[in-house]
């Protein structure tokens, strides 16, 4: 072939941008050998992460999460439903992950993105059914969680999970009351006026999350492990490992769908260690976002 050698010679004569487009893998490997990435991050550093709570006023809970330029908007709407006979004390969470054409050049209008149902399925595996029962056997909460991807720049699952977790911690459960054995939602304004209708869930306005799951996606390439990849990195080096740990350090998911590089025990351990660090960071970011809300 002679191609790799040709690129070696060309790299000194060619402009950097041209080299990056023509030999993307070579370009990245040159950086990796120096333990740095093209966006000036060390290999194991995740991008800057921000959370802003309450981004959607009409939702019961919402949050906007950004990891680098990957942006996710999550919103929760709650409805009362009759639980099924098999699980009378359980509510239901319905998760939809949307990837509109605005988020990436790979998504065409009219045709749903391939990644969307996969991310939604992964999310529903990681988010556990919390106490969503209202009146045992009669009423429970149906939770609609919608996540919109506004900008898809890699690590979609991480950002989606973070926005979902943030939206859950922002959630204000609406008050409901019993009316002739039927459950009625109380509109916010009427709360003081008709005091004869006693709210059923006066004290339970917040959802207590059990172990909060946080995730980190890593790329395996040769012996390098790159944390929190951008979409460019994801398209060039295809072996991805997503580790989800909850706040009590339980492994919720270790997800590696194929890829050219095999994960050996040491690499898996390294990924888990990186995720442990990241969970601490994310936990702090989330706490800060919540306390910021309370001051307002």
């Amino acid at each position, binding site marked *: 072939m002679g191609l790799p050698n040709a690129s070696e010679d060309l790299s000194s004569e060619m402009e950097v941008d041209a080299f990056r487009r023509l030999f993307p893998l070579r370009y990245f490997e040159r950086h990796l050998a120096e333990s740095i990435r093209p966006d000036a991050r060390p290999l194991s550093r995740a991008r800057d992460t921000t959370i802003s709570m309450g981004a959607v006023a009409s939702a019961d809970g919402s949050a906007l999460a950004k990891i680098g330029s990957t942006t996710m908007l999550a919103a929760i709407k709650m409805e009362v439903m009759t639980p099924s006979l098999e699980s009378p004390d359980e509510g239901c969470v319905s998760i939809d992950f949307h990837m509109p054409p605005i988020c990436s050049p790979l998504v065409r209008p009219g045709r749903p993105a391939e990644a969307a149902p996969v991310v939604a399925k992964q999310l529903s595996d990681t988010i556990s059914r919390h106490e969503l029962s209202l009146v045992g056997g009669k009423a429970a909460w149906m939770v609609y969680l919608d996540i919109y991807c506004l900008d898809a720049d890699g690590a979609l699952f991480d950002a989606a999970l973070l926005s979902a977790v943030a939206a859950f911690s922002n959630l204000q459960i609406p008050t409901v009351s019993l009316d002739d054995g039927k459950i009625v939602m109380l509109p916010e304004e009427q709360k003081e006026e008709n005091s004869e209708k006693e709210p059923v869930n006066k004290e339970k306005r917040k959802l207590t999350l059990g172990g909060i799951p946080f995730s980190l996606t890593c790329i395996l390439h040769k012996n390098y492990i790159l944390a929190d990849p951008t979409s460019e990195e994801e398209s060039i080096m295809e072996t991805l490992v997503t580790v989800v740990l909850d706040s009590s350090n339980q492994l919720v*998911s270790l997800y590696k769908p*194929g890829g050219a590089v*095999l994960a050996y*025990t040491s690499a*898996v351990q390294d990924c*888990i260690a990186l995720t442990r660090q990241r969970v601490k960071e994310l936990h702090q970011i989330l706490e800060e976002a919540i306390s910021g809300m309370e001051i307002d």
Partner: protein
Amino acid sequence: MEVDRADGRNPNQLRPLACSCSILHRAHGSASWSQGDTKVLAAVYGPKAGTKKNENPEKASIEVIWKPRTGQIGKPEKEYEMILKRTLQSICILTINPNTTTSVIIQVVHDDGALLPCAINAACAALVDAGIPMKHLAVAICCCLAESGYCILDPTKLEEQKMKAFAYLVFPNSILSVLPEGSSLVQGEPMEHGIITSVTHGAMSVDDYFHCLERGRAASAKLSDFLRRSLQSKLPADLSKAG
């Protein structure tokens, strides 16, 4: 710790395996794979000319179509398709037939637990039957973890529902070749210990995961032997046809 399983197996025992190749005569390659009552049929068509949009035309592309036993495909099936596609991409040599598409069709015949591993094994046998160039074979196994922390292999549907967590693991098949002993060691581990695919469901401790990994590796050796034997048994007939 002693564990009682409904069918009287011990925790490390797999269900009876069965594999038959070339069962569909219009497909370029086909195989059925069953583990106990779970049975999956796989057919391979290709390589066909051209790749779809968004695929790299410099490489062969693989397309996976999952057909459930009844009804439409939903989110879980979409995820299975994606996992299967990525797994097969990593074991096939994609540079040999650039700008072609190989379709792998998976038909679920009966689901009695460990469905995805069964489908991966079937797809792998069907690809060999179709003569698609591959780096190595892959074997898939399901490990289940109970509340008390013990681990069982190849669960049935009932066992899967009772367990708190499970992991689907795919390992490469050990290469039988002329390479000298020890040359296939990577970072002090034999090549067949590397994980191609790992999908977990439910919370477990990190130690439990590594425990599952160990059990899975041990069982995958048995599975690879079986896969190799069932693929070899059809070889003499082929050779006589060719001769």
